């Protein structure tokens, strides 16, 4: 109790001074915290933006990958086609054929049967109603694990074929092309080629709605294939 007895003597003075140390310390603490927050906020912002760029690049690579896959399909189609089943490279989607099929140009171009194809090419959405005009790219690019996880994209890209008619740029290629008969507008010695347009859509690494990116690329590609004298 002796402490208690002395204490009140200084109480009036000490009560005011004691708060100042705390106050000054707190001010410095706040200053340093602000500086630290600013610095880390900057870093976090940079990291997020870099993440966004990476997300977009993954989407672009996904769509490029699917477009190249589609080009390969088109390029090798004449060799795979079979005269016994009509020699078709791709059946026409307008007739309700299952995927992979090709949307042809000859029907009404921007409405009616071709409307799904136009929507596929131009929509910003990633939804079943848009993507149903195309087919899912088969090589696995999503859900990868282990070392490949870093390259994994949110969902499989989708791709769509459009038939753009005969390629009238060149006639001088000799021979028939595989088992396809629809290439042969020029006969067996001057086979004509058909141009298909492959449109591919892909998401980035993260498919959450707030940060989702959709990349769409297209490529007009002509049928190639083997020049066998079938």
């Amino acid at each position, binding site marked *: 109790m002796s402490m208690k007895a002395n204490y009140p003597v200084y109480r009036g003075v000490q009560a005011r001074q004691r708060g100042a140390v705390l106050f000054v310390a707190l001010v410095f603490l706040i200053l340093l915290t602000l*500086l630290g927050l600013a610095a880390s906020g900057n870093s976090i912002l940079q990291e997020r933006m870099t993440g966004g760029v990476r997300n977009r690049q993954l989407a672009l690579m996904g769509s490029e990958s699917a477009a190249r896959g589609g080009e390969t399909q088109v390029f090798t189609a004449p060799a795979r086609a079979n005269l016994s089943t009509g020699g078709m490279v791709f059946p026409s989607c307008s007739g309700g054929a299952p995927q992979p099929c090709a949307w042809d*140009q000859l029907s009404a171009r921007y409405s009616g049967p071709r409307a799904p194809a136009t929507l596929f090419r131009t929509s910003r959405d990633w939804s079943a109603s848009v993507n149903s005009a195309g087919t899912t790219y088969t090589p696995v690019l999503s859900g990868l694990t282990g070392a490949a996880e870093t390259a994994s994209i949110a969902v499989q890209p989708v791709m769509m074929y459009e038939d753009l008619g005969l390629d009238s740029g060149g006639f001088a290629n000799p021979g028939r092309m595989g088992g396809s008969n629809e290439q042969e507008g020029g006969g067996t010695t001057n086979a004509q080629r058909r141009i298909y347009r492959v449109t591919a859509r892909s998401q980035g690494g993260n498919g959450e709605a707030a940060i989702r990116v959709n990349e769409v690329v297209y490529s007009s590609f002509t049928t190639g294939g083997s020049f066998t004298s079938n």
Partner: protein
Amino acid sequence: MSAASEMKILRRAASHSSGGGLRQRGLTLLELMVAMVLGLLVSGGIVALFSATSRTNQVQTALSRVQENGRFAMGRMEADLRMAGALYRQVTTVRNWSQSGNGALFPRASIVVNASGVTLNHLATDGRPPSGWAANEAYPLSASFFVRGYECSTGTCLPTLPTGFPAQGTTAGNRVVGSDVLTVSYLRGLGSVFTSTGTGAATVFTLPAGHNFQAGDLALFAGCSAPILFRAAVAGNAVSPVSGSLLQPAQFLPGSANAPCDSRLFNFTRDFITASYWLQLQADTNPSADAGRLIPTLMRREGTDPAQEVAQGVERLDFLYGVSTMNNGTVMYLTANQLTSALNDVRCSLPSPQFDRMQPAIPTYREPNCLWRSVRSIEAHGLFNTVDDVGAMSPQDMAYWYSIDGGTGPVIPGVTMPVTGRPRHRMMRREFVSLVSTRNGSN
């Protein structure tokens, strides 16, 4: 504690505070010194902590700026480079195709110019027919004009830079010494759908309302065959060739309405973009900057519009071109100068059949500089700095590596920077590299 003693304490406290004498009682010298020493220690620590954090913050802001400028500038360039040479629907032209001879890609049809008096000065060509072309006949426009680079050393640029670019130098408005220049062209957008009637000079394209054609614009018809360039006369939504402007009306056959191939009509004057990139010294407009301070800046120009700043603090800019030659489609990475001069044009793949008219006279005809149409990828290198000086830098902090200069790792720059000859300042530097596949190239 009892209630009575509590009362006593309160009363004593009240009497002391009302008296006032005790409040003026000072601290002893010892107390004061201890307090001062402690205070100094604490505030010294705080100051040290503050300055360290502040310096970290400064460095971090500078690094963020480098990162941000680099990311944006490279992203902007990538968008253009990726589109280089794009022409909506490129018609392939197959002839005597063989995997070993011509590479796996088919050559693509060139634009056919079917209009008199076309000038395309921003395209590194005046847009005239190739030398030796028959007069008054539609002529092809080589795809080699759609990507053109210029390798600039301390002396001059090779191939020679066309007019319209600032001179190389060390004052405001000059091009930065030793930085490359690149020009790429492409058709943007998806054009206009149309219905058409007639052929030749009597052709009329009917476009949807809201098109961007104005009288005298060049129009590009992209259909099933090689795209055709003509001069447009506009009447409402109807576009037709300007009377008498077609070089060969008989060769102007756009086909009927609802033609296949998803044909489109493009406004070539407005939708065909020619974007150029180079580095330029810009005066620092910051009022607190040293007088005469110059900032090397990445510039972008569309066509003949005024150039715009893309990002500041870009010291070096170099491009390498992945070129596919006739050697089994092998892709080599070359500078613009090597691509133009060191390689013989014979190593180009065959030109598109639109050039066939040249064949009887010159059986192995290749248009000049034809390797530019075989560019498959472009590698862009940029050296970015922090724009402003960063305080308190040791020389080691300034070490950087620019892969174009070779070497094995970061080196500390001398007082002046290599190649550009500019002062090094107190800056950090970082190289950004971007490899872009240009999939719209022709063979």
